[in-house]
C-alpha cells in the first residue's frame, strides 16, 4: 500500500476528492488500532495521507476573541501555549507521555473519538467548534455535534479537520480531574471538566462535561440551564443533590478491564458535587 505525503493542504484536499485515504496526523492511535505482529507495518484499511507536516494545519492563534488551534498542532504545543485556556492545557498535560504528546495532535485526538479521549471534555465545555474542509466546502460543527460515537464522527471521507475554535472563556472557576490507573500512558477510568462564572453572588455560567462514562463525552445543556443565573445563596445541598440526581441517568458507564461501572458513576457524581461545593465556597 502506498501513502501520500502532500506538500500543501490543497494537494491533500485534491487527493481526498479523488480517492479514499486515511488521514494521519500523528498516528499515535492509528498505529495501535491497526497494529499487527511487531516489526510489521500496521494494517491500515486505506492508504495513509500524512498531514502533520502541512504548515496550514499548524499553529495556535487568537482572532476576534476566539482561540484557533489548527488540527495538526501537536499536543505538546498546546500544553505549552499561553493562549490556550488552562482547562485544556491541564487535560493535555496528563495525556499519554511526552513522546506521544510530541507526535499526537488535537485533530487526531478528536477524530479518534474515543470515549476516553482526553481533549474532548474540555472542548465540550469550551463549546468548541470543529472546522472541516473538503475541496469545495467548508463546514463548521460544534464538537458535541461532530462526535457521534466511539470512533465515529461527522467527518466525510473527503474532508480534513482544519481547525478547532472556541471563544476565550471568562470563567472564574474551573475544575479538571482525570482518574487513570497510573500517572502516565494510562487511559482514563473517568474524567471531569467544568467551568463556572460567578458574578456578584450570581452563577452566571456553568458548564460540565464527563469523559469515559458513556459512548461519548456527556454534556447536558438542560441541566446546566437549571442552575445558570441562580444566586449563590440558592445553591444549597438540596439543589446540589438535585443536580447530581439529574446527571445520574445520563451517566451510564460500563465495566471493562480498566474499571467498573459502579465506581465510575459514583466518582463522577462525587466530582460533580465537589465542583459545586467549590463554587459555593467561592
Amino acid at each position, binding site marked *: 500500500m502506498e501513502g501520500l505525503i502532500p506538500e500543501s493542504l490543497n494537494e491533500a484536499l485534491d487527493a481526498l476528492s479523488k480517492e479514499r485515504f486515511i488521514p494521519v496526523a500523528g498516528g499515535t492511535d492509528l498505529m495501535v488500532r491497526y497494529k499487527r505482529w511487531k516489526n510489521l507495518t500496521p494494517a491500515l484499511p486505506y492508504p495513509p495521507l500524512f498531514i502533520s507536516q502541512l504548515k496550514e494545519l499548524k499553529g495556535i492563534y487568537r482572532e476576534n476573541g476566539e482561540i484557533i488551534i489548527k488540527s495538526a498542532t501537536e499536543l505538546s504545543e498546546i500544553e505549552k501555549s499561553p493562549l490556550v485556556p488552562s482547562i485544556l492545557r491541564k487535560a493535555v498535560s496528563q495525556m499519554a507521555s511526552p513522546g506521544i504528546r510530541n507526535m499526537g495532535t488535537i485533530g487526531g485526538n478528536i477524530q479518534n473519538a474515543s470515549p476516553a479521549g482526553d481533549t474532548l471534555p474540555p472542548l465540550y465545555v469550551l463549546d468548541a467548534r470543529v472546522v472541516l474542509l473538503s475541496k469545495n466546502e467548508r463546514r463548521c460543527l460544534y464538537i458535541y455535534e461532530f462526535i457521534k460515537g466511539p470512533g465515529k464522527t461527522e467527518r466525510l471521507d473527503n474532508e480534513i479537520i482544519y481547525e478547532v475554535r472556541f471563544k476565550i472563556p471568562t470563567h472564574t472557576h474551573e475544575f479538571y480531574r482525570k482518574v487513570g490507573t497510573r500517572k502516565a500512558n494510562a*487511559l482514563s477510568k473517568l474524567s471531569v471538566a467544568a467551568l463556572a462564572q460567578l458574578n456578584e453572588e450570581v452563577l452566571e455560567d456553568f458548564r460540565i462535561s464527563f469523559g469515559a462514562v458513556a459512548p461519548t463525552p456527556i454534556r447536558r445543556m438542560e441541566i446546566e440551564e437549571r442552575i445558570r443565573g441562580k444566586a449563590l445563596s440558592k445553591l444549597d445541598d438540596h439543589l446540589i443533590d438535585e443536580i447530581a440526581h439529574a446527571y445520574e441517568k445520563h451517566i451510564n458507564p460500563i465495566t471493562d478491564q480498566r474499571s467498573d461501572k459502579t465506581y465510575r458513576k459514583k*466518582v463522577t457524581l462525587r466530582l460533580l458535587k465537589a465542583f459545586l461545593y467549590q463554587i459555593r465556597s467561592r
Partner: protein
Amino acid sequence: MGNREFKVVGKSVKKIDALSLAIGEAKYTADINLPNMLHIAFLYSPYPHAEIVEIDTKEAEKTPGVVLVLTYKDVPNTLHTTAGQGYPEPSPYDTRILDKRVRYVGDRVAIIAAETKEIAEEAKKKIKVKYRELPYNIDPEKAKESERIPPEGAYHLLPTIYEPEKNIAAGITLSVGDVEKGFSESDKVFEDRFEIHYANHAALEPHAALAFYDERGRLNIVSTTQVPFHARRITSRVLGIPVKDIRVIKPRIGGGFGGKQEVFLEQVVGLVTYKTKRPSKVVLSRKEVFISTRTRHPMITWYKAGVKKDTKEIHALRLKALMNAGAYGPHALTVMANAGSKVLPLFNKIKHLQFEGFSVYTNLPVGGAYRGYGATQGYFGFNVMLDMIAEELGIDVLEFFKKGHIKKGETSPIFEKLGEGKEGVSQIIRSCALSECIEKGSKAIKWHEKRRKKIRKGDKVRGVGAAILMQGSGIPKIDMGAAYMKMNEDGSFNLHIGATDLGTGSDTILAQIAAEEIGTSIDKIIVYSSDTDFTPFDVGAYASSTTYISGGAVLKCARKIKEEILKVAANMLNVPQDALFIEDGTVYTKDRTQRVTFSDIALYSLYSKDQHQIQSVASNIGLESPPPFMAQFAEVEVDIKTGRIDVVKFVSAVDCGQPINPALVEGQVEGATVNGIGYALWEEYVFDKKGRMLNPSFWDYKVPSIMDIPEMEVIICKTYEPTGPHGAKSVAEIGINGPVPAISNAVYDAIGVRLKKSPFTPERVLNAIKEQGLKL
C-alpha cells in the same frame, strides 16, 4: 568481623557487560537469526476446559511456507513439569507438550513452524478444531469439588500430599506446640482473611528460544532461561534425546524474575529442529507472555493470632494458606510452603504455631516462580496483622517489630520443620541488623512526625506504614553451583560459571568475588557463564541463590587457584609458600625483597619448568540459608473522593550482609520495590467469567511508569555473614515483599481503612471504605 577491608568487594564497579549492552553489541535470544531458520507460532485454547474432539490441520499445512504442524497426536506424550527446579522436582508431573485436553484459556493446542513468523501466525487460523467443552472452575475455594483438571496418571516424585482427583496439587500441615491451647490461653484473638492476586513478571524481554544442529549433530538450544542445566535435563527427558546430545546456552537476558525458571519453549524448538533438521526459533508476543507463560500464584491466607496482654506478645499463631496453582502445578508445593517457611520464623518467639497450606488446580493461567516466591503472599497478611495487633495493644508497631523479630544467635523451629517440599534445615541466625534497619528506615520516612497525624490537604490524606521481612539465600542442602578458573600468560583468569546473569549483574559480582580473593583487579577476570558445554553445573538463578551459592563456589575456586599460584611462586623464588603474600596481581615475599608478577608466574608455569595449567574447580552447596532482612516504609496520599492511592515516598532498609557491589544492591532493592508498588496498586490479571484474561497487554496491564515512582531511599545496613562469600547474603527478592503490606498499613494510618484484598485500585479502596462503614 563487621568491617573488613576490601579492595574490589564493596565497590560499585561497572557491570562488565554494561558497554556491550549499551551499544547493542550483546545479543539476546531474539537477536539471533540463522540461515534457513523456521519460525514457530502456537495455537491456543479459547476455552477454560475442553477436550479436542477433532483437529484438522490440512488447510494450515497446505499454506505456502508452512513446514510443520504439530498437534497432540504428533508429539511425545511424556508427563513432566515445566518447573526448572532440581531433580527430583518438587512439582507434579502433570504437563505434556500438547495434550488432547486443554485446561485454561491460553493452553497450547498446536505448534506451527513456517518460513516466516507471519506465515506461521496466518496458518494457525486455518487449523480447524472441534472442542467438547467441559465443566470448569476458576474459584480456588471450590476446587476440591470441581471437575478434575490434571490428566490421568499425573504424579508427584516426592512423597507429599498430591490428590489430582480432588484438584489438590500440594498440601502441608505442621505444628509447633499446641495452637488451640495457645489461643485459649490468650487474652485476645485476632482473625482475618487476606487475598493476594495474579500478576505477571513483565520482564521487558519476552520469552524466546532457538534451536539448531551443530556440525556434529548435537542439538544446540539458545534460550531466555534462568536455568540452563535444568532446561537441558528436562528437554532431554521430554524429547528422549540423551543429555550428551544437547547443549543449552543462555545469552544476555532482559529480566527473569522467576518467569524464566520454566522450561516450556526449549522442548518445542528442540522438537521442531529434530523433526525438520532446520534451525527454529520462537519469540513470544507480549500477549502470549501474559496468557501462556507463568504468573504469580494468587493466594488466600487466613491468619489467627492469640495475644497476651501482660507480655504484649503473640502467644499463638495459625496461618492457613490456599494457593491457586492454575491449570498446572509448577512450584505448587514450594511457593505455598514458602508462605510459611519464609514468614513464620521472623517472629520466632511465638510458642504455638500452626501452618496449613494447600495448592489447588483451577482453569486459570499457570502459576510459577515469581520474585518473592510465596513470601510476598505470606507477608501481606502477616504485616497487616502485626499492625492491627500493635494498635490494639496500644504500642508503636515498630517497637512491636523490634521486640518480636528473630535476632543474631537465635533460631526458629520452622527452619527445620519446613523446607522446599520436604523438611528444612535447622540454622542459627549468624547475622541480623533488622532492628537497625527499622531504626534507620523510620528516621528516613520521618515516622514519628507523620504516624497517626492524618495530614489532610483538600481531598488528600497522608499516612505512613511499615513492614518487616526476611527471605533466604538459596535452598540449603539442595542448590549447588560450581566454578572453574584457569590462569593465562598475562596474569588474567578465565572464570567459567554455570550461574545465570539475567541482567542482575551476577557475572560482575562473581568476578568481584574472584578478584578480591585472588588479589587482582576485576579487569583481569574474563567471565564466561551459563553454557552447559563449557561451564560447570549450576542450578541457575533462583531462590536468591547466585551471590551466596554460586558466589561461594567462586570464592572456593579462587582460593584454590591462589594456592596453585603461590605454589609456583614459591618454586620460582625458592622460598616456602607461607613466606609469600599477594597484592595487586603480584606475589611478594613478606619482607618485600623479592617479587614475581602473575604474568611471570603464568609464563613460568606454561613454558618453563614442570609445565602445567594453573587451574581450579570448586562446587558449593549452601548448608544454611541465611536470611537477608529488610524494613520497608511507605508514605501514601489517599484521595478520598476517587480512592486513588499515590505513594509519595518509599524507604527500604536492608541487611544483605556485606554488599558485593553497592550500586547493584541498590538497583535490586529499587527494582524489587517498584515491582512491588506496581503489584500493590495496579498490576493485575482481569478475567472474565470463563477465565479469559481481559488485559493481556501493556496497554491495559500497567506497570509503574517513571512518573509513578515515588521518592525512593535505599539504606544498606551492613553485616557480615560468616557463611557467605566475603560476608554476603542475598538481596534480589526480598524487596518485593513489603510494598503490599506497607502500603496497606499506610492507607490505614491515613484513612482508617484496612485493605485486605490486593491490588489496591481506586475501585477497591472505595469498596473497602463502604464495607467498613467509614464516613470520610
